[in-house]
């Protein structure tokens, strides 16, 4: 028998929390008074006591592929996060009534008891800046800002009734990406790689790319962090200009063989450490070194868009050597083909307050549309041609919506036209496997302020994504701090069955 490792011993002791003690105690007491057996079926039916899914990776190969518990509709996810939060009222949520009341004072009923990030006093209603029309066979509404994406509208499912409870960027982004507005939780991609491992052992299962080399996320790297999950499941940020992964290449004058020798020595030390303390993070570290070594060849190939023919580059508007959303979209397709499970693209600049010029609905939003419209459409079309859209899920969206009122920061009229943060309603769209295409789901009121039909909470979206990947969000859990942590948290999450094909 293996000698008890001090690390695991400590883990076990810290896991025996007051919660467990009380839980056990109450359960024992309860058994005296209640016919526990009779109460059981009810609990099981409600899913309250659904047993946690067993996810067992070989500690020395924590990314080896695991089949999902249920037949999956999609095998990978490409998540296009539009950081800063695009205005739904300028893109997808058509509100003619709002346009009619443009410039009028916002009705009192919408302001009473509300707190906004910047709006003060009585703001004016602001109609959409851009004309809307119906497009495609489905006749879904879309503005004139997305002429390329419009051609793919029959492949999209637009959710107009998204809701969140966070109105500042960082917590709202964390909620969308990790299921919790606080730091320390595991991101979507980490949950997915934890549950499924990685198809390709020469590439990370979860890759993150950012459109700009200078702007970073408000919430920073925790957006693709592994939180309480083992760190081997965190997202790996890659770049399309320069080395794909910083410090991945061998330093000048070091050959691959020499690198191998160094790794062998380091691995040996780590193995000794593991034998002594038994901390699985040590094995994860060995696995990560080994993956980087394998990645040296594979990653540069996967990220190298110069290997694409000219017509493909043109279709995406990609320019090799640059850092752009277009390049990232093209790389996303290449990664999808190579079995990367979760590909996360971030594009910043949608925070259209109207303060600086690049944050105006009339300027910055236009630039963002210009930078993302063509590549997003190209990505959809390209995946479709390769048959990959059938089992890929594309998710597009920001972290909240924007107000139907014009922002009046400091009670003043502002230089550019903008809208404030709006958690009550926003639009996202999904496309790909298992999704009913060419539909819109949910609706907001005539002014686009509140959701009036089929609200979709962020946790509902998460439960739906996990369902498509073959998981029940109630059972995909990880014990941490005495609680079976779940992506969807402790509140009940609903799989949005209306948008499923």
């Amino acid at each position, binding site marked *: 028998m293996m000698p008890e490792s001090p690390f695991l011993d400590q883990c076990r002791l810290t896991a025996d929390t007051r919660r467990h003690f009380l839980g056990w105690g109450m359960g024992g007491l309860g058994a005296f008074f209640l016919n526990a057996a009779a*109460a059981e079926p009810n609990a099981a039916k409600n899913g309250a006591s659904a047993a946690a899914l067993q996810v067992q990776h070989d500690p020395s190969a924590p990314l080896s592929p695991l089949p999902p518990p249920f037949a999956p509709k999609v095998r990978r996810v490409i998540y296009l996060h539009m950081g800063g939060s695009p205005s739904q009222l300028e893109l997808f949520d058509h509100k003619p009534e709002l346009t009619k009341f443009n410039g009028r004072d916002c009705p009192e009923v919408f302001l009473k008891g509300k707190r906004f990030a910047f709006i003060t006093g009585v703001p004016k209603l602001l109609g959409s800046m851009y004309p809307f029309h119906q497009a495609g066979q489905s006749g879904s509404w879309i503005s004139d800002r997305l002429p390329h994406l419009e051609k793919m509208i029959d492949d999209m499912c637009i959710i107009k009734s998204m809701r969140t409870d966070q109105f500042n960027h960082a917590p709202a982004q964390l909620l969308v990406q990790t299921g919790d507005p606080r730091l320390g939780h595991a991101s979507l991609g980490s949950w997915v790689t934890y549950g499924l491992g990685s198809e*390709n052992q020469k590439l990370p299962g979860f890759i993150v790319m950012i459109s700009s080399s200078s702007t970073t996320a408000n919430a920073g790297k925790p957006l693709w962090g592994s939180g309480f999950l083992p760190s081997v499941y965190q997202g790996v940020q890659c770049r399309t200009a320069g080395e794909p992964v910083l410090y991945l290449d061998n330093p000048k004058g070091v050959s691959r063989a020499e690198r191998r020798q160094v790794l062998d020595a380091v691995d040996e030390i780590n193995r000794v450490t593991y034998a002594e303390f038994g901390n699985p993070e040590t094995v994860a570290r060995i696995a990560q070194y080994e993956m980087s070594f394998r990645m040296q060849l594979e990653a540069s190939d996967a990220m190298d868009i110069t290997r694409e023919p000219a017509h493909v580059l043109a279709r995406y508007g990609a320019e090799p050597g640059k850092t752009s959303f277009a390049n990232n979209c093209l790389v996303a397709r290449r990664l999808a083909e190579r*079995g990367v499970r979760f590909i996360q693209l971030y594009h910043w600049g949608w925070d259209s307050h109207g303060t600086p010029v690049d944050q105006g609905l009339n300027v910055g939003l236009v630039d963002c549309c210009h930078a993302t419209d063509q590549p997003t459409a190209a990505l959809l079309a390209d995946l*479709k*041609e390769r*048959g990959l859209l059938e089992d890929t899920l594309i998710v597009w969206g920001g972290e909240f919506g924007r107000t139907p009122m014009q922002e009046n920061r400091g009670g003043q009229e502002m230089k550019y036209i903008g809208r404030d943060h709006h958690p009550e309603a926003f639009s996202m769209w999904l496309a790909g496997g298992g999704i009913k295409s060419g539909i819109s789901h949910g609706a907001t009121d005539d002014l686009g302020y509140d959701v*009036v039909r089929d609200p979709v909470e962020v946790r509902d979206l998460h439960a739906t994504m996990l369902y498509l990947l073959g998981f029940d969000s109630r059972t995909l859990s990880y014990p941490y701090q005495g609680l079976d942590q779940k992506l969807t948290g402790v509140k009940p999450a609903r799989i949005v*069955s209306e948008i499923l094909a």
Partner: protein
Amino acid sequence: MPSEPRAPGSLSAPLYLLCVALVTGLAIATIMALRPAFAHKVLEMVGLETRQQAASGSFYAVRVAPLFAQHCISCHGENRAKAELRLDSYAFALRGGRHGAVIRPGEPAASELMTRITLPAGDDKAMPPEGKTPLSPDDVTVIRLWIAAGASPTLPPSAIKGAPRLVAEVTFPDSNPAATRRQRAPLASVMQQLSARYPGIIVYESRNSADLELNAALRGMAFTDADLKAFLPLRGRIVLMDLSGTAVSDASAETLAQMTALKTLRLTNTKTGDATVSALASLKSLRSLTVTGTGATKPALASLSQRSVAVHGDGDAD
């Protein structure tokens, strides 16, 4: 005979019995009043009341009962009946609670239940109370329409017009590890050999399935016609095959034609062409085929498209 002297304060036998009967009656009445659900059960048992039961498939059973079950019965059910109100059966719902009936058939506006579920969220009397999942506007409409139509236990869904569409809830199949093991058993040893020889590219579709997916694209040009042939023993189970960017060519046409379980086949950027496409005609399960970057031509693909196989790639060899 002189009557026996009675102890002071004692009662005659009939009077005593009367008292006992009175006290018992009072006790029963009190219990009945405090526990109407119990009272009805007793009355039902002794045949003083007819049992009201909802018909399966009725509007109540299909639309209303699930809402009560989802939102109400944790407090108004068998294990707990706050205010003595239970909503876990039609009969209980109609009988009401401690304060009387909560549903007045045909009169939603006069029904306490309607009043409670339409109070603004912050109200102390609003139901479900704060912290519980509220009923959606559509849910409220369903209940209102049902009460307005007479709160019937039998009326079929089609008889109540204007009800919001019924939304199906997603359920997960029960997993049966033993059955899955049995299904996998015949091919287990082949599967073991092949996964050792080709690690990571042949995997089960899910934990509850014996169906397989072959992702040879991960091997690229190192995966050849001969390699594909090695997977023939699994032909009855491979449902998805991604051969994109591999060295597989038309020489594999015959192999592919035997992959009878195949639903999805991806040939992107391979040296395959019309010979392969024609061979696929025998695959009855095939639903999706990708020929982008292959030599396949439109005429050869036409027959597959007619069979409602989704063909990806335009078939213009380039």
